[in-house]
């Protein structure tokens, strides 16, 4: 593995049994291989049930691969310490609504094993960055969906991660929220950090991603740059993807 590889999927498969007593299984991910390099924004594209979220879950040790190998920051999955250098923004946050944004960030920072001093400055900095400083002590049940998404982004950035994993991050975000997200992703790339982005919003993918992998029915059907996907920009991204999805 290259030293600058932050995530590597090698011939990864994932099967789901169709029922507790059933011997039949569904292959959600089928021999997928790709790497995410340091300093790049990598897009994971595909129609619904293509296996994108399953790949992310396996990378984050939320579920295990049925076959193949995955490494995280050059270490095998069982080394949970590497999770401290990865940020994860879930598509549908279910944060405890009785906590305030400040309390939540403190708690998640503790679970990320950040030192007290780092955490103290980081929480305030991030609250300011995502525009929640003035509402930092309000309980989350008073927050709109967009504000919860901003908080989700803040908690993912707590450890100043080497790899930021974003699963449908713009869901519920308004225009300024989307701009903020783009700034965060661009800033991370400039600092040599990586982003793994799952999104259906093509404009976002076009603006942010250096390379993409396209999945269909659990299989990787494309891996390369956006230019390669759109034949040097000669075709709209939507058309290129549509052809891959329907091929």
């Amino acid at each position: 593995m290259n030293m600058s590889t932050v995530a590597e999927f090698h011939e990864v498969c994932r099967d789901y049994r169709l029922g507790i007593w059933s011997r039949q299984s569904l292959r959600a991910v089928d021999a997928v291989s790709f790497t995410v390099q340091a300093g790049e924004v990598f897009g994971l594209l595909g129609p619904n049930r293509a296996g994108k979220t399953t790949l992310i879950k396996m990378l984050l040790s939320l579920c295990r691969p049925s076959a193949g190998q995955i490494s995280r920051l050059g270490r095998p999955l069982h080394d949970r310490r590497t999770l401290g250098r990865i940020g994860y923004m879930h598509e549908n946050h279910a944060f405890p609504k009785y906590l305030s944004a400040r309390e939540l960030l403190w708690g998640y920072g503790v679970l990320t094993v950040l030192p007290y001093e780092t955490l103290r400055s980081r929480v305030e900095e991030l609250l300011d960055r995502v525009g929640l400083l003035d509402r930092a002590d309000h309980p989350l049940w008073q927050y709109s969906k967009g504000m919860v998404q901003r908080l989700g982004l803040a908690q993912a950035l707590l450890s100043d991660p080497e790899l930021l994993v974003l699963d449908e991050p713009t869901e519920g975000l308004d225009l300024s929220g989307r701009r903020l997200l783009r700034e965060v992703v661009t800033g991370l790339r400039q600092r040599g950090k990586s982003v793994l982005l799952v999104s259906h919003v093509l404009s976002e993918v076009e603006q942010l991603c250096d390379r993409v992998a396209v999945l269909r029915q659990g299989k990787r059907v494309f891996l390369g740059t956006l230019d390669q996907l759109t034949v040097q920009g000669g075709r709209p991204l939507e058309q290129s993807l549509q052809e891959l999805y329907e091929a």
Partner: protein
Amino acid sequence: MNLPAILLAIRWLIWETIRQSLATRIFWLMLGVSVLAMLFCASVGTVDLPRYPIGDTPERLPPNDPQARDPERVTRHGVDIINGQVTLLFGAVRINTTIYREEAIRWLQLVLAGGVADTLGLLLALIWTAAFLPGFLEPAAISVLLAKPVPRWSLLTGKYLGVLVFVLLQVGVFVVGTWLMLAVRTGVWEPRYLLCVPLLVMHFAIFFSFSCLLAVWTRSTIVCVVGSLAFWVLCWGINYGRHVAVIAVTEHAEAAVGASWALGMGYWILPKPFDLSYLLSQTLGASDYFPIASELQAVERLNSLSLGASVVSSLLFAVVMLILAGYEFLQAEY
């Protein structure tokens, strides 16, 4: 992962669980029950009336009465019966008693600890806290936490301990509050009553471990509520049934041998709520003053009851449940 980091994570989860109890109003609901009990205790009073003599009735004396220790004197002259009143609801209800004031208050404490807290309180606590873990384990809620570097088991441990701390707070308020109220109102300072706090929390911890396993398996609040209540009833039945079967076998009932063996197996494997309640009443010294269940008397006579072994085996059951829950949580996929 270093131990201090894990302990900090557990501490935060305990704090978060207390916040959850405050936000879901369960904290205030249980505190309300305690306040009601304290108000009731604040309404209790005692009136000591002159002792009046009555002959040939030593059996009516409390066993620790100094007069009853001299049987000859009792036979010759009779004894003075304690005469007084316990008033409830600020004197609205007056109960004539022929027992010491201390015993009347101990009887009240026994009702509060054994009846209100140990049975009703325990079952209500199991119901009201049943949603804590399933909600925490919802995929959308737990996914982000599982993507943090702290070990999975520490998340479950933190939440379990959080619920225990919450119950400890509530039990502490209930027991200390009612104790203080009764003591201030009646002048009876009975420190043994305070031992109810660890005993009640232990009783809850044992049954909540089963609820914890159900939560990890099913992530369903309904299953946790119904399952833990049904399990408590089952354990109580097996506990009581085992004692009855032991007595039956000893009295040469051949037919009871099989049932006794099966109930004995269940008895030693499962928690023992009947025995734990007996331990509580023994701690309060109830058997010095009030008759204990005939089944318990009989198994004690037969040397078939060891409260120490009951506690240890019940705690072992809880440990096994927590290990199973931890293992299941480690294996769970989201």
